[in-house]
């Protein structure tokens, strides 16, 4: 198995739902065919899913808006007022979302106007890293819900190296990043090891390790000499030394840091790992069918361990990015900020493909960044972002639904829609 590096496409992968199957269509004109594929294809579905989710979000915002409620009280005498109020609330919310996530037109020059976009990328950094981790596990057929625990121990390790060790610039940062990733990898590796040796269900173990990690870090954060800031009684760590902080990417007026570059590198690495390497081939084989993989001579149990190690390390990178990049003034046990769970939706939206995860992470980062400005400017709770995110994933996962809503043509002969993520299964724990 060692030197068998498969060429791309050697493993027939399940076509994504909604993607045109390769079967030839009874040929109308070429142009018509192209149009049909664009209209019914996977990219169109994704765009429409986002639109649909935003529409549902707008309805929610409008329904709960005070002005809309007031105007609807006299709907039958002046219906225009109601529609205007609905338009005002929805457009106000979404323009705040846009200006908080991409470009702020209220700023005079480009340098400050573009700041929201860098905020988006800052929010996207840990989401992509953790999403990649969850995606790697998905590809092997493992469901890693343990992002929270892995991020926390990674944050703890990276933070400890970051504030307690005294190393020169550069080396310090690398040491801290590695410490965090190793800690995350260990936390994930425990799961793989337990699954391989005892058959323990990874869903249970990851959930349980979330709590264990949370309480462990909580204990360390309030114990002097471990992670607690000296002279403080709060459960909070001291600030990270400047030598261990990710430098800003575009200067001090933006929060975006070099962690984003590391995450780009991680995306490329995962792409190489999954699509080009021998290990990745084994990952995918186990993910598609562990029994067939075993018959083919792949050591399935080892693959589980490797996959969870890599998965945990990548999720750990998210924790590292938080501690060494975003929140450098010391962290508390809420440092994971729900990213461990968001990462699951990111991985699902990205269909567990590295590139897909990258852009899904940026989209969710934009929603997060914009959500905060929406909350500040329009008083709309940030939770609406969760609604929009989950609806996007739901709609994307069910192309027939989106097609039905928009009455789109079905491109070509659609094969039985198989789900992209083989992960999710199945009580195939029994071997």
């Amino acid at each position: 198995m060692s030197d068998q590096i498969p060429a791309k496409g050697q493993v027939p992968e399940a076509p994504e739902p909604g993607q045109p199957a390769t079967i030839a269509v009874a040929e109308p004109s070429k142009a018509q065919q192209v149009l049909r594929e664009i209209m019914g294809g996977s990219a169109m579905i994704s765009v429409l899913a986002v639109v649909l989710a935003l529409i549902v979000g707008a309805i929610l915002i409008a329904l709960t808006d005070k002005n809309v409620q007031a105007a609807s009280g006299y709907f039958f005498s002046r219906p225009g007022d109601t529609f205007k109020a609905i338009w005002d609330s929805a457009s106000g919310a979404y323009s705040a979302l846009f200006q908080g996530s991409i470009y702020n037109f209220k700023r005079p020059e480009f340098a400050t106007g573009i700041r929201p976009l860098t905020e988006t990328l800052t929010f996207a950094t840990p989401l992509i890293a953790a999403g990649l981790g969850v995606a790697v596990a998905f590809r092997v057929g493992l469901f890693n819900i343990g992002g929270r625990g892995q991020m926390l121990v990674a944050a703890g390790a990276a933070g400890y190296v970051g504030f307690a060790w005294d190393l020169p610039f550069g080396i310090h940062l690398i040491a801290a990043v590695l410490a965090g990733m190793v800690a995350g990898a260990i936390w994930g590796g425990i799961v793989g090891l337990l699954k391989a040796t005892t058959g323990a269900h990874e869903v249970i173990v990851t959930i349980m390790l979330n709590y264990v990690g949370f309480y462990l870090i909580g204990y360390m954060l309030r114990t002097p000499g471990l992670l607690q800031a000296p002279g403080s009684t709060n459960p909070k760590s001291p600030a990270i030394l400047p030598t261990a902080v990710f430098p800003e990417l575009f200067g001090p007026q933006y929060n975006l840091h070099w962690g984003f570059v590391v995450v780009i590198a991680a995306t490329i690495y995962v792409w190489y790992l999954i699509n080009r390497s021998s290990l990745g081939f084994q990952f995918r084989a186990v993910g598609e069918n562990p029994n067939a993989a075993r018959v083919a001579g792949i050591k399935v149990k080892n693959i589980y361990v490797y996959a969870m190690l890599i998965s945990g390390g990548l999720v750990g990178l998210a924790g590292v990015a938080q501690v060494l990049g975003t929140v450098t003034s010391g962290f508390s046990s809420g440092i994971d900020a729900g990213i461990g769970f968001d990462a699951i939706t990111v991985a699902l939206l990205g269909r567990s493909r590295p590139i897909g995860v990258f852009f899904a992470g940026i989209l969710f980062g934009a929603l997060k960044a914009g959500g905060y400005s929406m909350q500040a400017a329009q008083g709309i709770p940030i939770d609406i972002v969760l609604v929009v995110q989950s609806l996007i994933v739901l709609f994307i996962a069910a192309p027939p639904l989106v097609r039905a809503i928009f009455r789109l043509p079905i491109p070509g002969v659609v094969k039985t829609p198989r789900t992209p993520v083989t992960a999710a299964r199945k009580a195939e724990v029994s071997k």
Partner: protein
Amino acid sequence: MSTVESTTHGVPSAAPIVLERAAVRNWKPPIGLGAFAIIAVLIFVIGGRGGTTTFKLSTDSDLIQLPPIFAPVTVVTTVVIVLLFLGAIASAYLSFTARKTPLWLTAVFALLFLAAFLTWAAADATIPIPGLLVGTVGLSVPLIFGALGGVISERVGVVNVAIEGQLLAGAFASAVVASVTQQPVAGLLAATIAGVLVSFVLAAFSIKYIVDQVIVGVVLNVLVVGLTSFLFSKVLAPNAAVLNSPPRFERIPIPVLGEIPILGPVLFRQTIIVYIMYIAVAVVWFALFKTKWGLRLRSVGEHPQAADTVGINVNRTRFWNVSLAGAIAGFGGAYFTLGSVGGFNKEMTAGAGFIALAAVIFGRWDPIRATLAALLFGFASNLQSVLSIIGSPVPSEFMLMLPYLVTIFAVAGLVGQVRGPAASGKPYIKS
């Protein structure tokens, strides 16, 4: 691994497999028990404490007063350590002679360990046993309802990761409806309906649109968290008096049974929700294993093709039973508001749905075992709060970790390779 070794690896089908008797020695139980015995030595001897612990067996309002038990710490821990080692040796002997370690031995072992631990942790203090157990039941109620929902759903072949969402939706709906109507019973009804609605989405997406069930479940959780938090901040919080002050159920003591020492206050002085829970557990167990409905349900979850051939409509069976599962879980969600806290709060289920999911797997998809697992979780988290009041030598975080660590140990060591319903998680496409 406890498979029959002689049957593996390509034995021709004609070979008389049955005649060969493979002696299977499963060393997991003795190793697990031995590890706990050693842990006991580490805790009780190295962290030895003197004094006497008082176990209070009756509350002041009891009709029959039991005298408290006084347990000298050193004596109890020493005796228990000896017994624990005897238990581990007995288990090792049984394994050596290729026999199974009986469940009662494990149970007695666990009880002994627990008793010694309580005695040790509370040295020179009083532990109110009824209080400890009453709290256990209280914390377990939503877990048990959630686990019952999970068992039904998974037995019929749909993985239910959305328990968390169903509980939360139930809690939200019951709080709002009970506040508006001032009728807690109406709240219960609303909670049930809310759970069913969440299940409808799960069922529709996983059965009609054949989206991966775990994906739908995860996304639904996020969706419900987002929706309820959004509506809470936007609608409930500003109008708390009208929309979020539900009346609570009163405790109804059952006349004679409520006077039984220890058990009376724990089991028979509860709210109506708890009494319904007793009935629900029994009914679900009976219905699953003793009725035609249960047989059909399980056959659909194990082998949908076979079920289809004998005329069972697989997808319809799945749809309605998943809805039923949602109803049960949603009902349990009402306990958060009407049974314990009162008002709704953001994310008030706090991961209970995931613990319920763990209980389902821990309980091997059996309603009774899942209930016991849920009780174990409830007990462990309540033990922590009781001990933190008394002031235990262990940092509270480690106590909080304990249930999760025990679960990991149990899943890895004792439960081992659990096998769920064979077709759970797989959509059924009639061909």
